[in-house]
């Protein structure tokens, strides 16, 4: 009798531990920040995209296959809705050269393209990403019309986690001109870099 109760209790405890642990692990995973490269403080000279001289220019880097980036795209949509007309936005989709063209033609890309005021571009072999120091899908940069970096980071609260987040709030206030200092948030998403170079360290 006792042993059965004890067994049951211990079984329950074990299970609780495992389940709770699992939840902790998944929460932790969700909160794992992606790596960030060195982002130029001043708009670099690139051909594919150009800096808008009237409004702030937003650039998002995305991996076309990354499921977590969907949240970022959704958040971008919300963000642009709040700052309509005062921002020029680019979403640059990573496009490895050796892969077929339809690899990038995903739902995610279409969703991004459907957002008003967004210019979607392929980023062949991640050339631009490398230039802008973007290593994680969902990495967003904001430059003022003079080419000065205002914001860098993610616009989701966790990996694939839509909803209110600090990055979005920062951009809104920056665009509104309420704040001028450079701000940064962690970015959550798949790596834009291949495995070989994914662990190249993360920095804010």
């Amino acid at each position, binding site marked *: 009798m006792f042993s059965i109760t004890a067994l049951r209790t211990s079984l329950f405890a074990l299970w609780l531990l495992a389940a709770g642990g699992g939840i902790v692990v*998944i929460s932790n995973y969700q909160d794992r920040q992606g790596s960030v490269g060195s982002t130029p403080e001043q708009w670099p000279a690139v051909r594919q995209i150009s800096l808008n001289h009237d409004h702030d220019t937003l650039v998002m880097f995305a991996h076309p296959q990354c499921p977590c980036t969907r949240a970022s795209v959704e958040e971008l949509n919300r963000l642009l809705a709040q700052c309509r007309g005062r921002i020029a936005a680019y979403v640059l989709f990573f496009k490895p050269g050796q892969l077929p063209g339809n690899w990038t033609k995903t739902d995610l890309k279409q969703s991004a393209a459907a957002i008003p005021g967004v210019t979607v571009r392929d980023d062949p072999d991640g050339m631009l990403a490398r230039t802008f120091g973007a290593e994680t899908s969902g990495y967003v940069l904001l430059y003022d019309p003079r080419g000065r970096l205002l914001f860098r980071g993610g616009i989701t609260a966790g990996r694939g986690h839509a909803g209110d987040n600090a990055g979005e709030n920062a951009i809104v206030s920056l665009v509104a001109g309420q704040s001028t200092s450079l701000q940064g948030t962690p970015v959550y998403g798949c790596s834009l870099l291949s495995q070989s170079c994914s662990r190249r360290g993360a920095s804010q």
Partner: protein
Amino acid sequence: MNSSTETSNGAGDAISVRAAELFKEQQQNIIRHTDRIFSWLMPCQWLASVAIALWISPRTWAGVDSQIHPHVWFAIFLGGAITSLPVFLARTQPGKMLTRQTIAIGQMLMSALLIHLTGGRIETHFHVFGSLAILAFYRDWRVLISASAVVYVDHLLRGFFWPESVYGVLHAPIWRSFEHAGWVMFEVTFLMISIRKSLSEMHLVAERQARLEAVNETIERTVAERTLALTLENTERQRTEEQLRKSQTQLAQAQQIASLGSWEWDLVENRVTWSEETKQLYGRTPEELGSPMEHCLKRVHPEDLPRVNQIMAESLRTHEPFVCDHRVILPDGKERVLQGRGEIQLNGEGKPIKMFGTVQDITETKRAEDALRRSEEQLRQSQKMEAVGRLAGGVAHDFNNLLTVIEGYCGLSLQEMKETHPLYKHIQEILRAAERASSLTGQLLAFSRKQFLQPRVLQLNEVVQKMEKMLRRLIGEDVELSTVFDAALGRVQADPHQIEQVILNLAVNARDAMPRGGKLTIKTANITVDQKSSFRNRVLEPGEYIMLAISDNGLGMTDDVKSHLFEPFFTTKGLGKGTGLGLATCYGIICQSGGDIRVYSEPNSGTTFKIYLPRTDAVPEPAASSDAKLIPGGTESILVVEDDSAVRKLAVVILRGRGYQVQESNNAFEALELIRKNSRFDLVITDVIMPQMSGKELCDQIKGQLPQTRVLLMSGYTDDALAHHGILDEELSFLEKPFSPARLARKVREVLDAPDVPGRFHPNGKKQTPVELVS
């Protein structure tokens, strides 16, 4: 405190205990049911989580490299882990507290997992609220508490360790950690209220159920008790019924054997019930049982019904028992005589409420009684006849002798007298009177059946035809006579003289019945009687008969007259007019001839007498053509033996007048002496009834000594003595007194002329030789 309150308290306690039990049971049912729901729901959720993971984030990428997304693994393994224990417990130990708590926690953890897998979609949070609602199925607030605790702890911990994942910002105000939990609390609060409500309802239902059960139990117990009692009662009743049936059967058998049924008349409802035997006796059908008395009396003979009704009414009035014999007519038309006996049953106020009694078949008894009465009547009748016969016989003997003398001398005188002689007419009147007197004597003897019959084969048509002229004269001109003869009429064997007598009597009666004239019809016919038919105590055997019917359309007669019709001396014709012997004579003659006479008459519609005589196949002998005027004579020597000297002398005178040599003797001894001395007598004529030695004895003696001597017996009547003497049997020659000179002469000649066997006479005519008439 008395015992009844104790019991009721006890009962109340029992009910509440039972209610608690029922409540628990119901609660357990609900919990187990909910356990079962989760045991299916949770694996489904698990699979759904895997599907969601595979759909939303199948792979995770790094540049062009990809691998399975950790979410998929989380869904599979963490989801599986979360699901495993609750499902296991739900399946193996449903209803336990630990099971549902595990389920509650697991369900909430699953919510957390799903939220993670869907990237924190707001919609996925509905899973939390849905789950809470489903957990509320347990109707156990503790489950909701632990579930919400998990939510809260999860939130709290994540808010602490990964605030951004919860609030979107790193530093959230403290109240935000309560916002989410607040909504949860909001739902949980109302769920708890509803749980409390449904629990109290369940309590109520349980209590009601307990009460119902208690009532049911009481009812069932009562029913069981009553059933037992009934079963016992039933067995008892069955036994009683069995006994009753047995004794009823015995009673029915007894009734059947005794042909005695019982009946009962409920006077209040006018319903009559009866036993099986009564039913049989009255020829009733079972459906008629319980019908009113009037209906039951339907079968009673209509002639008896008024009497039956009267007797019953009388009994109802006097309250006295009654006995009532009555006839019933059965449905098949048969008649039965029943004797009903009844008694009246009175109620407390002395009013009759029931009549009951028996009914017995007394048909046989009645029949026997009737037969006895009939034979007694017949005996009386024959005794009466006997007496009359004796009287008549006694008188007739002397009377005939006197008449013989009167007639004889008158006849002799007339023979010797010229018709112009002044005394001729006077003597003729004397002779007529004497003839009437002799016919009266004859009638007296006839009805007493002491007459000496000399039957012959006759054809009645001829007999009637011969009489027609005489009858017409007799009945007068006012009465019309018509005859209807059957041309193929058969023959009968009878004494023609007697038959004439019968016809005459009937014709005279018919005339008397038609004082103002009318029609007399005589009819003959062949009749076949195929069934024994009886009439006035006489039975006509089946066979062929000749019928002679004599009808008039005169006064007719009443039943009363009819019943005395054939009695001697019965007459309606007043003193001096009728003798009352006519029909008695007819009856005697016909009965003696083996026939029957029947009368059909109604007052004022005439009368028909029908005479039936047995038909015979014998051939009629040619009638002796006797010429009345021819009186034969002879020279033979004759001895006349007669104790009455007047008669003797007359005979001697007649015979001597016819040329015979006649000697006489006044007794048998002297006669024998004479015969011995002179044995040459050709014929001895002797009276039968004489003192000392009868004519029969004398005859025997003569036969013994002188067989050649012929004997002629004469007598005034046939008597038992005569028959005893064997005269009738031995076919001896016989002469009836009174006789006329001519008759004597003829008879003597007849005997003397008979061939071979001397003294032989064949009254039935079989061997009779033709009579030779000698002048």
